[in-house]
């Protein structure tokens, strides 16, 4: 890992893309240092795949510039950009066997047959497919196809790897395993990777740098835990973290040091900063930051629980009041629906947002 290497490998400057009147990419600015693993994450239709495809050269941009390895690639066709891409459907060539699939790009470059064969063996060893080189893609399982798709990218030693939701066609357990493998491979090869996913857990666990997108715009980018701790707005706060953050309207108290929630018995929560009294806010509370206690104890607010979901390790509690408050509790908690419990939240875990702009008001 050479994150401190500050050479910018990929750069988007003021990139816009329109499909007719539809603004698919809105003033995208993004710099990716060499060797960094960047995840583009957002709900479907947010433009993350489009952004990746403009980088690959499969889509043209309407304005702005894209740089790869210090070269402006706006008008350079995909084949000359020296980027390798792993597709969601893997896009293995059905009429070629695994060896031919792996070395197709080398064949197009005019690499000799012997070198190609060696390369195929080398890469097959890395991805663990030595025994399958003569098979056709249709004779492989989903996970094996996924590996071939990865191998096809690795064999080229490109400027950067582009991943377009590569794990979304795999079942859950395989997905977790491949997540680790891709990350391990990245660390081993040390190349720049851009990874598109709609799964925030994938983005958070794999990437050095997460870019959250919505409606063609970058909402926030940064180190994964920083996005979790200091979300810039309601959207990022709600998108990062699972289950999603609770949002409850509230008003800052006269002291300016606490906020009264518009919720059940209007409890008052201390906050970590001083705010203008009477200011309306949206209070964001992560389900896992809610501490449970006795409803009668000092500092705890009483709320009644309407339903309980137990998974064994954790228990999800849902309040009967609206907006529904979701609480993630330890699996040992004995709470039943209809119970009234006491909750409190540490002041540093209270996120405040502007009700109009949805921008974070917390200074952190």
């Amino acid at each position, binding site marked *: 890992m050479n994150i401190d290497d500050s050479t910018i490998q990929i750069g988007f400057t003021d990139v816009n893309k329109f499909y007719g009147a539809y603004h698919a990419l809105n003033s995208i600015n993004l710099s990716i240092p060499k060797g960094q693993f960047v995840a583009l994450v957002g709900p479907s239709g947010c433009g993350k795949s489009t952004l990746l495809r403009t980088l690959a050269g*499969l889509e043209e941009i309407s304005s702005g510039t894209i740089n790869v390895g210090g070269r402006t690639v706006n008008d350079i066709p995909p084949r000359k950009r020296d980027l390798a891409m792993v597709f969601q459907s893997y896009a293995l060539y059905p009429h070629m066997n695994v060896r031919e699939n792996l070395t197709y790009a080398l064949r197009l470059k005019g690499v000799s047959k012997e070198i190609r064969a060696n390369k195929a063996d080398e890469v097959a060893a890395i991805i663990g497919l030595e025994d399958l080189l003569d098979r056709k893609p249709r004779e492989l399982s989903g996970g094996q196809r996924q590996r071939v798709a990865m191998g096809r990218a690795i064999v080229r030693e490109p400027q950067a790897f582009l991943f377009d939701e590569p794990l979304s066609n795999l079942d859950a357990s395989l997905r977790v395993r491949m997540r680790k493998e891709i990350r391990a491979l990245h660390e081993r090869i040390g190349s720049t990777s851009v990874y598109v996913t709609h799964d925030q857990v994938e983005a958070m666990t794999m990437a050095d740098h997460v870019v959250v997108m919505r409606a063609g715009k970058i909402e926030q980018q940064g180190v994964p835990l920083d996005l979790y701790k200091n979300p810039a707005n309601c959207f990022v706060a709600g998108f990062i973290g699972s289950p999603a953050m609770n949002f409850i309207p509230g008003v800052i108290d006269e002291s300016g040091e606490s906020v009264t929630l518009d919720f059940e018995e209007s409890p008052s929560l201390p906050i970590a900063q001083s705010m203008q009294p009477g200011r309306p806010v949206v209070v964001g509370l992560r389900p896992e930051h809610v501490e449970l206690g006795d409803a009668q104890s000092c500092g705890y607010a009483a709320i009644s629980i309407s339903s309980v979901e137990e998974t064994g390790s954790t228990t999800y509690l849902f309040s009967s009041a609206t907006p529904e408050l979701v609480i993630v509790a330890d699996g040992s908690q004995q709470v039943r629906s209809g119970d009234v419990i006491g909750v409190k939240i540490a002041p540093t875990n209270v996120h405040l947002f502007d009700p109009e702009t949805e921008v974070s008001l917390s200074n952190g």
Partner: protein
Amino acid sequence: MMGMKRIYKNQLLFIVALFAVALYLFPLYWMYTTSLKTDTAIFAIPPQLLPSSPQWQTYIDVWNGSNIVRYMSNSVFIATGVTLVTVIFGSGASYVLARYRNVWIDISLFTVLMLQVLPPSLMVTPIFVAFASIGLLEYPRIATILAFSAKTMPFFVILCRAAFMTIPRELEEAALVDGNSRAGAFVMIVLPLARNGILVAALLIFMQGFGEYVYSASLISDNRLQPASIGMTNYLQPNIVTWNSIMAFAAIYITPILAAFVLLQRHIVNGLTSGALK
């Protein structure tokens, strides 16, 4: 009770299907039996279902006396030419029509379908005039190939477009990223994958070209360049019609293509339905 009903229904449908097949195949059967009958047996009442004394000599006479080899080579020439022109130009056209979606593509597709509607007998006069004015009638078989290719093209384009549409776009994109140009991706990835569909469509076009009549009859006046479909009509004379010879000629003419069709029918059916089902 329901099960019994279903069995009856299936059996009934099977009988209906058998009847339909028999109806379609009867002319073929009649062609083969008539070709082996004597002149009197042909008009016997009640008709003979099987010839009592098969006249194999008719086949020898037809083979020796009617230039059938020359006629059939002309048919093969025209059919091959039509197939080549249609496949070469049609593949590219159908690929474009399969890959792009906009209003112009819709208009083109509609126009292509419209062309399919126009009957050759309607088109032949303007084509004759046009070809005569540019001197194409000097090469009547080429003229026929061009004229008939215009007729087969829509059919080929529709079939091939369906074949191309089954090929995922991501495969081409992967090829582009891997280092192919657009044309390279078409030749190295798309064409091999659409091969079955194209071959089946080409075979069907060949068969159409092999049996072509209207354009050959109008555009080819030189007897030596005419295809078998025209050659056969030489037996139709004002006063005497030798039905057994015509049928023998027809049998020699269509049996090879029939055999090819039967041998390849599994592939043909696969090729035709794969686009619709996958």
